[in-house]
C-alpha cells in the first residue's frame, strides 16, 4: 500500500471513530450537538500532553484521552440534560460550550495558547487506528442493538411516550452523550498523533458541524451509513485533490441538499449488511438479465 493511500485511510478511520460516536448520540437519541469538536480537542490535548510532556506510552494515552473527554461531557451534559432543555436550546448550549472550550484552550498555559503543541510523535499508524476503529464500531453496534439502543430510539422517536414507557430520559441521553464524547476523545488523540501538531483553531464549530454532516448524510438511526459517509468525506477530496475551502463549500451545499431532498440520509434508519448487499446484487442481476432477455 502506498504511503499516500495509507495516509488517507488513517485519516478516514480517525474521522469515522468520532462519527460513530456522534451517530449514537444524534442519530439514535435525536439531539444535535454543535460542540463535539471540543471533545475531539480535549482528547487531542490530553493525549498530546501525556505523550509529549509526561512521556506516557501512546495506547494508554489514547484511552485516557477518551475517558477525559467523557468526563468533560458529564460536566456539560449533567446540567443541560437534567434541565430537559428544548432540543434547539440544547444545541445552542453545546455551541456555547464548544466555543468556550476553544477560547479556553487558546488561553491556558499548558496548551500553549494559540501556538498549540507542535512536534508530536506520529504514533497513529494504520494497525493501531484500525484496531480502535473496529473496537469502537463493535461497541457502538452492540450498544445500538441492545435494550440501551432501543431505549435511545424510543427517546428519539417520542420522548413523552418514552417517559411513559418508564424510560428515564436523562440517563438515556447522558449515556449516549458520554459514549459519543469518549469516541471523539479517542479520535482526537489519534488525530493529534497523525498530524503531529495541534492548535485550538483546528477545533471550531465548523468541525462539529462536519461531524454532524457525516451522521446526517449517512443517515440518522444508522451506524453503517455514517461510517461510510465519514470514510467518503475524508477520502474524496484527497482523491480529487481539491483545496480545503472548496471541499467545505461542497459540504455546506451537500448538507442543505440532503435536508431538502433526502432528510433521512443515504441509509436512513437502515444498516448496510452483507445480506442486504447480496439481496441488492440479486435484484440488480435479475433486472439486468431481464432487460437482456427483452432485447
Amino acid at each position: 500500500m502506498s504511503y499516500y493511500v495509507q495516509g488517507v485511510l488513517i485519516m478516514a478511520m480517525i474521522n469515522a471513530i468520532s462519527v460513530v460516536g456522534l451517530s449514537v448520540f444524534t442519530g439514535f437519541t435525536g439531539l444535535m450537538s454543535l460542540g463535539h469538536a471540543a471533545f475531539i480537542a480535549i482528547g487531542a490535548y490530553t493525549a498530546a500532553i501525556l505523550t509529549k510532556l509526561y512521556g506516557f506510552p501512546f495506547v494508554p494515552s489514547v484511552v485516557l484521552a477518551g475517558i477525559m473527554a467523557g468526563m468533560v461531557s458529564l460536566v456539560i451534559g449533567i446540567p443541560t440534560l437534567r434541565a430537559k432543555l428544548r432540543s434547539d436550546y440544547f444545541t445552542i448550549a453545546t455551541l456555547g460550550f464548544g466555543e468556550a472550550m476553544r477560547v479556553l484552550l487558546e488561553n491556558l498555559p499548558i496548551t500553549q495558547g494559540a501556538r498549540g503543541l507542535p512536534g508530536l510523535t506520529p504514533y497513529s499508524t494504520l494497525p493501531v487506528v484500525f484496531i480502535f476503529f473496529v473496537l469502537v464500531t463493535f461497541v457502538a453496534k452492540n450498544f445500538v442493538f441492545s435494550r440501551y439502543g432501543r431505549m435511545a430510539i424510543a427517546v428519539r422517536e417520542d420522548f413523552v411516550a418514552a417517559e411513559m414507557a418508564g424510560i428515564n430520559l436523562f440517563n438515556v441521553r447522558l449515556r449516549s452523550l458520554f459514549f459519543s464524547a469518549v469516541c471523539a476523545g479517542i479520535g482526537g488523540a489519534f488525530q493529534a498523533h497523525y498530524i503531529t501538531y495541534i492548535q485550538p483553531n483546528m477545533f471550531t464549530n465548523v468541525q462539529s458541524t462536519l461531524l454532524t454532516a457525516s451522521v446526517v448524510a449517512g443517515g440518522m438511526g444508522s451506524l453503517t451509513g455514517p461510517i461510510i459517509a465519514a470514510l467518503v468525506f475524508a477520502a474524496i477530496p484527497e482523491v480529487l485533490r481539491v483545496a480545503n475551502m472548496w471541499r467545505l463549500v461542497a459540504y455546506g451545499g451537500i448538507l442543505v441538499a440532503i435536508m431538502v431532498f433526502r432528510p433521512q440520509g443515504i441509509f436512513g434508519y437502515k444498516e448496510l449488511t452483507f445480506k442486504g448487499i447480496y439481496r441488492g446484487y440479486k435484484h440488480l442481476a435479475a433486472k439486468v438479465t431481464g432487460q437482456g432477455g427483452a432485447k
Partner: protein
Amino acid sequence: MQMLMQTIVTGLAVGGIYALMAVGYSLIFSILNFSNFAYGGIIMLGSYMGFYALTLLHVPFAAALALSMLGAAALSFLNERIAYSSLRKRHAPSLYFMISAMGTSIFLENMVYATLGSSYNAYPEIFGQSSISLFGSTIGKLDLFAIIFSLIAIYIMNYFIQHTRTGIAIRAASYDSEVSQINGVNLSAVIGLVFILAGLLAGVSGVFLGMKYMAYPTMGWITNKAYISAVIGGLGSLPGAVVGGLILGVLESLVSVYVSSLLRDVFSFTFLIVLLLVMPSGLFGKYLEEKV
C-alpha cells in the same frame, strides 16, 4: 468612576450592534422557532457588499449602506426559499432546520474564502478617528452613529410589526402559524417578508461591523453574540433582543476591563449556558416547552 462610565459607554457601543443582530436573529426565531445559524453568513456578505460599494463603486456612504441592506435582504430571502421552505412545508423537526442553516453558513463562508480570499478588508474612513465626549466619557463618532442608527432601525422595525397590517400578520404567524393560515394569512409570504426584514438588519450590522472590525470571511462568528443576546432577552422577543444585546455588550466590556480581556468570550459562552439552564425564557421571552 470615570473608568466605569467609560467601560459602560464602550460596552453600549458594541451592544448596539449585538442588539441589531439579535433582533434579526430573534425575528426569525420567533416565526420559525429555530436557530438560524446562517444569519452570520448573511451579515458577512452584507459587510462585503458595503465594502465593495464604497471601494469599487465609490458611492456615498448612505448608498453603500442601502445597497448592502438590499443585497443582504435578497440573500436572506433566498436563504429561506432554498434551505428552509421545503422543510417548513414538510413540518420537519427543528433539528433539520438547524442542520440546513449550518450547511448554508459553511457554504457562504467558504465560498467567500475560496473566491475573495481570506484577507481582512478595511473600510475606508468615513467618520475618521474623531470622538466626542459624553458625560465625561469619550465615544467614537462611528460608535455613536452606529448605536443611534441601530436603535432607529430597531424602532422602525418594531413600529412596523406592532402597528401595520403586515406586522400583525407576522405576529399572528409567530404565535400560531397553522391557525393564522386558516385565518387567511399567507404564511409563505409572511415568512419571506420576515427574512427580508432580518436581511435588512443584517446589512446594517454587516456595514457597522465592517467599519469597526473590517470585513473578512469568518466575521459571521460574531453572530454567536447575537444568539447570546437573544437568549438573555428571551428568544423570540424583539425588545428582549435589544435589551439583551446592550446588557451583553456592557457585561463583556466590564469583564474585559476588570477581569481579563482574554476570558471575555469564555465568560460570554459560559453565561449563555448558565442562562439557558436557570432562565430559559430570558428577561422577556416565552419559553415554550416542546409540544406534548
